[in-house]
């Protein structure tokens, strides 16, 4: 394993779900207070010298310029604060920016996280808001939705590789099973393949249970220069590899929509930087905004060959007791998907797994973890690799 880029010394997650009666800033404060409580040696105002926060949309609360406000609400003023946006990868890129900040030496200890407060608006309006991450005017104006865009990938994947609706359903069933073990998850509900197949089509072949949830939530990490980590914790988690790549915003200009090329490229960089082979990954959180996205992530991350993602789920390789447990948190599917919070929420889960704090969903002896976070129709992909520090 390569030498660490930056080190996570604490993590916090708000409860995900319909959190009526809270502003986004208050949700973030809930996550931050958990991170601060977990790390008694940290004196936030004294030690933390920067804040990075991912948020997709101003339009849920009609509030732009949230970085100073979040800094204020978590008691970090006047530390420099930065907001990043990459649709559903908004906090995935916030984490990368925080790594750059630490690597550059400009910051030593930062708070990095994300937040989204989505559930106050009607589902049809949220659908339109999220749709803004596709090409305007050439996709949005046809009434396309994000389920619609991933459904396009699904029909193409099914036609090319014979992937089935049942295989997609199995991803949802697995992630719901995992989510039952996560008290922070939005939806704690056991479902069967039959339930998924019988649920209402949102964008065929994707049914209601193939889709992630519209949630409120926030997540954050305390990230330090690796040299300082021991001051704050005995169980540091190092970030040892990081990769990012971009593709066209619209799906209509891609070479092949059955391959998540950006994830492939980001993963290649992250694996090389970390000097880790795919076979060494003990646990992974991947971006299952829709079930087809998890199947395509398996292929792009090298968990199986291109086109064999459906078979991987059939074989149970990614279940909690399988060779590479994927989305032990319940994933976006069951834990919930407050879009701005998702990237660092994935990192929170890996942090808990590698420090042995994941409770009932603990993967025994997990030492190396991976997160994959995508934005839009996989126009952005961020992959990070984590190693347990000793």
């Amino acid at each position: 394993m390569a030498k660490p880029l930056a080190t996570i010394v604490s993590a916090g997650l708000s409860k995900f779900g319909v959190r009526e009666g809270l502003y986004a800033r208050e949700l973030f404060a809930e996550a931050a207070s958990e991170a601060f409580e977990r790390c008694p040696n940290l004196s936030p105002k004294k030690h933390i010298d920067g804040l990075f926060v991912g948020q997709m949309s101003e339009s849920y609360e009609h509030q732009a310029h949230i970085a100073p406000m979040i800094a204020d609400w978590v008691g970090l003023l006047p530390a420099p604060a930065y907001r990043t946006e990459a649709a559903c990868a908004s906090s995935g890129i916030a984490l990368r920016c925080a790594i750059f900040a630490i690597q550059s030496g400009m910051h030593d200890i930062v708070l990095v996280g994300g937040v989204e407060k989505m559930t106050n608006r009607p589902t049809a309006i949220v659908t339109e808001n999220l749709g803004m991450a596709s090409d305007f005017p050439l996709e949005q104006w046809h009434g396309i939705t994000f389920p619609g865009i991933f459904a396009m990938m699904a029909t193409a994947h099914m036609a090319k590789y014979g992937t089935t609706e049942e295989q997609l359903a199995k991803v949802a069933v697995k992630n719901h099973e995992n989510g039952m073990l996560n008290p922070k998850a939005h939806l704690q509900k056991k479902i069967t393949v039959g339930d998924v197949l019988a649920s209402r089509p949102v964008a065929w072949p994707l049914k209601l249970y193939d889709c992630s949830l519209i949630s409120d939530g926030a997540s954050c990490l305390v990230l330090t220069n690796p040299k300082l980590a021991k001051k704050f914790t005995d169980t540091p988690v190092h970030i040892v590899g990081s990769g990012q790549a971009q593709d066209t915003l619209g799906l209509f200009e891609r070479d092949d929509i059955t391959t998540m090329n950006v994830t492939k490229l980001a993963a290649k960089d992250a694996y090389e930087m970390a000097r880790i082979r795919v076979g060494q990954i003990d646990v992974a959180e991947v971006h299952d905004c829709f079930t087809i996205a998890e199947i395509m992530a398996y292929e792009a991350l090298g968990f199986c060959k291109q086109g064999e993602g459906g078979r991987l789920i059939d074989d149970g390789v990614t279940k909690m007791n399988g060779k590479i447990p994927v989305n032990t948190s319940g994933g976006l599917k069951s834990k919930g998907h407050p879009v701005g919070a998702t990237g660092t929420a994935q990192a929170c889960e890996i942090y808990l797994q590698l420090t042995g704090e994941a409770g009932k969903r603990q993967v025994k002896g997990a030492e190396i973890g991976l997160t994959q976070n995508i934005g839009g129709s996989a126009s952005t992909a961020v992959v990070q690799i984590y190693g347990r520090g000793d």
Partner: protein
Amino acid sequence: MEPDKVIKEKKPDSKWSEWGRLGKWNVVGYKIIEGNKGPRPDKLQRARYMLVNRPWDVMYEHSYGLVSRFFEGLLEKKLLGTKCPKCGDVFCPPRAHCWRNRCKLAETEWVEMPMHGILHCFTVLGFAGEAFLSDLPFILAYVRVEGANTLIAGRLVGMDPEDVECDMKVNIKFVEHPSGNPMDIYFVPEGPPLDRRPAEEKARMRRQLEPIRTWVKEKFGR
């Protein structure tokens, strides 16, 4: 410097001019609620909060930029694309500059596209943004117009959703009165269904779409 002049104009109906001012952000409704508060489901406390309703919307004005000619073409019922003079790649929908590094952002040239292509992939929408709810369920497809290197989105009509398949040949049609909107074009199948989807899958899809049709009929009366 010569002043800008309007070549052609369709003025929005005067009813739209009120659009942005209608609600004025007034609080037109509220609720005071006592609910549960706290991050831990096992340690919730009761807390009060207030919810308010404020109407707000905007009238957008934006230009189609360097690819405006494509949308003018729609008004004239002509499907246009662009072509890179260096590598020959054809873009429909258009790009103003070539996408290849080696062409160094070469400016593309306008070409007229044939009115047919191949359906690359599709979806049947069972839910949509507010503006499109009354049209549900509808078929959206990405079509590769013959000769193009990119795909173009649009609706497919004239076929039951359960008969649609990837790789079908389609013809491209214009709506009767184009308005300069990408939705001025739509697709129709060129021939009979390929009929390669299993009967069981087709029957399941028919069953799944039925409640959506009923919901739309009840909500919108169509």
